[in-house]
């Protein structure tokens, strides 16, 4: 039988987040009273509400066919990896190195074969970034990779 998987997974994930938040708030923070609410009051209520809403989304979805989600795992991995590379690379590779690496990784899933345009794009964006942010806006960043 076909089920509405996006709603089931999404709803259950939200329920899990809600329960965790509610449990954490109950265990760690003071609830206080209605008159003088503690730091735990609002998050505990919100967590419980989110858990309930997650179930309301997920349960009816068990019995109906849904639209399959169009996942693009290659694009997602490449785009997210390029951001993480930039984040960890900036202090070590410098602005130019981090930009070049992340542009190259980001361009991998694009629907156009060939390396030439990727290299051109990499050089162009790296130049532009260094010019705009380092030379133009004078952001204090290391531009070149740090040699060990």
């Amino acid at each position: 039988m076909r089920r509405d998987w996006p709603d089931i997974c999404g709803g259950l994930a939200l329920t899990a987040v809600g329960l965790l938040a509610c449990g954490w708030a109950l265990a760690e923070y003071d609830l206080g009273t209605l008159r003088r609410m503690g730091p735990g009051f609002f998050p505990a209520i919100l967590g419980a509400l989110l858990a309930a809403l997650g179930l309301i989304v997920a349960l009816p979805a068990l019995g109906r066919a849904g639209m399959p989600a169009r996942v693009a795992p290659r694009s997602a991995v490449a785009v997210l990896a390029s951001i993480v590379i930039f984040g960890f690379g900036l202090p070590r590779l410098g602005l130019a190195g981090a930009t070049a690496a992340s542009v190259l990784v980001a361009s991998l899933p694009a629907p156009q074969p060939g390396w030439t345009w990727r290299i051109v794009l990499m050089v162009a964006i790296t130049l532009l970034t260094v010019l705009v942010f380092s030379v133009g806006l004078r952001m204090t960043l290391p531009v070149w990779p740090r040699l060990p």
Partner: protein
Amino acid sequence: MTTWEGLLYGIGFALQPGVLVYCVLGVVLGTFVGVLPGIGAMAAISLLLPVTYYITPEAALIMLAGVYYGAQYGGAVASILMRLPGTPQSAVTALDGYPMVREGRTGVALFAAMASSFAGSVIGIAVLVMLAGWLSTAATAFGAADYAAMMILGLVAASTIGTGQFAKGFAMVTLGLLLGCVGTDVNSGVQRFTFGQTELLDGINLVALAMGLFGVAEVVANVQDPDRQGVVERIGFRRMLPAWADLRQMGWPTLRGGALGSFFGALPGTGSTLSSFLSYAMERRVARRPERFGKGAIEGVAGPESANNAAAITAFVPTLTLGIPGDPIMALMLGALVIHGIQPGPLMLEARPEMFWGLVASFGIGNLLLLILNLPLIGIWVAMLRIPFRWLYPAILVFVCLGVYSVRGLTFDIVAVAAIGLAGYLLALAAFSPALLLLGFVLGPLIETNLRRALLISRGDPMVFLERPISAVFVVATIALLLLSLWQAWRQRRNARADRREAA
């Protein structure tokens, strides 16, 4: 300050070169992202948030507002020429705009969109000025309970109106509220959900959240876009001039659309997408020959375009007078002001007249610029439609990273963008609205503070929300909205079941 003095003062302020340049920048950039399908005003404003750290708050607000209404113009161009709505607000415009292009009336369709957008924005400005003066006087009567009740009404309205499933929308709002709790609790100083990360003491960074949810998630969803090869004829200025009959047909729809848009824009939770759909529906109902709609009726372009531009402007009413954003884009604007330490509210009209009147005047100037600039520049926008997305998105990603890094100089924020982007992409896949999450996130701390204050004042008696007349109205409206959406869900399910029985 009377209205006329205020307007003159505002025009003088907005025409200063140091302010005007940001207005121009905003509207040009807005048109650009509006034309490009795949990047909306939300993403563009998120990308610009870090820039606002370096300019005055007035210029920042004027620039971000310019992006917002500029995107509406750009969205209309893409809708009409290519039947690719660049923004959700202009999706309706494609219904009759594109058939007009097929008929060879491209120039007239574009003229109708531009002229009615401009007229709609003028109506919106008039309504904004009238409402703001009145509301900011009325708002001084608002207490903590009233604010809390009004914000909750706004959240419920945003998650019920115009979304398919109420539970999904409300779940996103709740998740946003919960994320808004992260960081140091204002009342007790307790660190909530920080897990020992000093970077989270001030809460989740709004810039990182907005960029992850909109910038990154939208890029991921559009990477595989094939290159567009549309051939669009060159449009001479002469061919844009409409016939007298066209002008006559446009008049009333533009006025009606403007009025409708002004009304729904000012209500929290509704916004400009809804008003353009409503205007289209209304024009079709009042038309003498409704069968023309969908086949190139000029009213179907003029009405919705006027409505969404009017709504884009009156959406600022609750934000500026009460400090309560009515929709996610306004939540970002409010966030930009809060970054500068400005909390908009009823006193802003008096305390910061240059902010309010400068913004109002910039609406007029910006829309006039759009009208003057866009007619001759349409060729350029069309050429831009053909830039393949694969040339743009790696640069967008680098700007996202550097933008978020420039705010606090922490690489933690860059990695946070990746994590938030992953979550945002997954949510979008399962058709959960990230925009509602952001609305909840911005309103969360405001609601919590006002809720706690209201209950402290009433000594823990929750009846305070029904005893104060203002908040009682909001509470009743909230309950009515909830019941209405429950009834709609029940009716939908019954119809679906009936359909299945017929099919069986």
